């Protein structure tokens, strides 16, 4: 698996670098509308053609990667971290802590947070800078997304806790910190990785959905979310396979994460 992992890391690094070098690779910029050539096919000028307003699709993909590739993993890490603290605490200590936290997770998953997001939008000024809006969006996604991972981690912690080595460690009188850091967490690492990895595409797309509420990445700034949302029109895509580039890139990046983050041994 090692060469595959190295290749995945190299590929991911290349994509990141390309995104950072967007200004050099796609000098047309993401916002400029070449109104005389809308819906253009790929050419030497527009590597991936243009969108319906004549904007360079390649530039939009590169700039969109900056936003999504930096912020979605950050939000996923935040959600997984909060989820891990809650889930592991519940699973490890059990008893009333477990009961309370488990019910809190249920509660969190059943409340319609949409309305909180609506209220957040109402409180924010209308003229928010794109960067601020993007930051707030992903922060909210990270903070609201902890309950799902927490539930899985709680179940995994329950399971690991009853393993022989854990029972022995506690019987030896090891301190909880020691048990947690030396025995429990290393055994939960693959589950954590899986949760982190699964959250990334979810957050990339959620960002696009938040556009519905006036949050998210506002025009003309591109993100993978709004580029993917543009693919809803599958029939239009059918004759123009280059339009699938955002989806292909998402899948490639997800595959890279899959090979880099060890999670084959799911709950060993």
């Amino acid at each position: 698996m090692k060469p595959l992992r190295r290749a995945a890391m190299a590929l991911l690094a290349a994509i990141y670098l390309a995104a950072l070098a967007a200004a050099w690779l796609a000098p047309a910029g993401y916002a400029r509308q070449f109104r005389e050539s809308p819906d253009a096919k790929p050419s030497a000028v527009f590597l991936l053609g243009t969108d319906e307003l004549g904007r360079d699709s390649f530039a939009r993909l590169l700039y969109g990667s900056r936003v999504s590739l930096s912020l979605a993993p950050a939000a996923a890490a935040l959600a997984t971290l909060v989820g891990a603290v809650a889930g592991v605490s519940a699973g490890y200590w059990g008893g009333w802590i477990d009961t309370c936290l488990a019910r809190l997770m249920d509660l969190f998953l059943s409340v319609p947070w949409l309305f909180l997001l609506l209220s957040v939008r109402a409180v924010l000024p209308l003229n928010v800078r794109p960067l601020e809006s993007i930051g707030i969006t992903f922060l909210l996604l990270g903070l609201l997304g902890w309950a799902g991972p927490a539930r899985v981690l709680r179940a995994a912690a329950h399971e690991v806790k009853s393993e022989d080595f854990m029972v022995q460690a506690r019987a030896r009188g090891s301190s909880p910190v020691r048990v947690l850091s030396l025995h429990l967490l290393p055994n939960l690492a693959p589950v954590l990785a899986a949760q982190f990895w699964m959250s990334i595409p979810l957050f990339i797309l959620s960002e696009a959905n938040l556009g519905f509420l006036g949050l998210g990445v506002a025009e003309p700034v591109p993100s993978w979310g709004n580029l993917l949302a543009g693919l809803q029109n599958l029939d239009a895509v059918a004759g123009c396979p280059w339009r699938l580039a955002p989806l292909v890139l998402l899948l490639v990046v997800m595959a890279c994460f899959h090979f880099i983050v060890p999670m084959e041994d799911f709950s060993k």
Partner: protein
Amino acid sequence: MRMRARLIHSLTTVLLTVLVGGLIAAALVRRSPGFGVDEREFDARYGQDSIRHIREEAKPSGGGALPDYLRFLVRAATGDLGTSASFHRPVAALIAERFPATMRSAGAGLALGWTAGMLLALAAAGLSRPAFDLGAGAAAAFFLCLPSSVLALAMVLAGRLGGKTAVAVVIALVIFPRVFRYARAILGRIAAAPHVLMARARGVRPWRLLWAHLIRPSAPAILALLGVSVSVAFGAAIPVEVLCDSPGLGQLAWQAALKRDLPLLVDITLLVSLVAGIAGMAADIARSAPAVEPS
């Protein structure tokens, strides 16, 4: 007796959670922008008087979230779930119309997802062919990383499936990778246990090996996932029903959200969190049940 006490305790906490969830939902809806506003207020067909009347109708009662919620609960206890503000019909009737559709598609999706996941996991564990394992694992990973809304859109645009069938298929695709990965891990561990290896070496017939040494001992742990998968299925149903235009609870919830329909939203929140709470409780009980020792 202990079991019964535990059951009562669990049920009480679930119920309490559900009620608190309802209150939070009610408070959030009441505070959200657009609550108590009717779209007709910007309809130029209506004159001043009618707009005033429309505003009067849409105006929330002045009682505040908690007293209103308590009054609502008292009424709900007598079976009156209130009247939907946007559909102008009793919420109980609306839910009764929509619940079966969601139950059917979620049920079919769960059955399909579980069957596919378990069959693949058993085959992977039983066959012990690395290529098969890798292939099934890759398929599961692929579907795991595709959010349900993407799956739903693909269904909608690619296929000619009816709304409910499309929802069931998407739910199955959401459930399948989770079941597969979890079951595969547990079965793998059991299959590698010395007594199973011994049985295999003794030439125990494959079906008996499968049943007595793989399925039965892993059953409690795998069943624990059932509860979680029920709430996952219900959770996925909302966006998927909206995208596939399936007339279920998910679609109803979305319409209620757009119209800030407080009674309907609170009722749906209560119902969905009740289902999720009970499913979670069942999972906890299954997990703590004594595992069947391999014979």
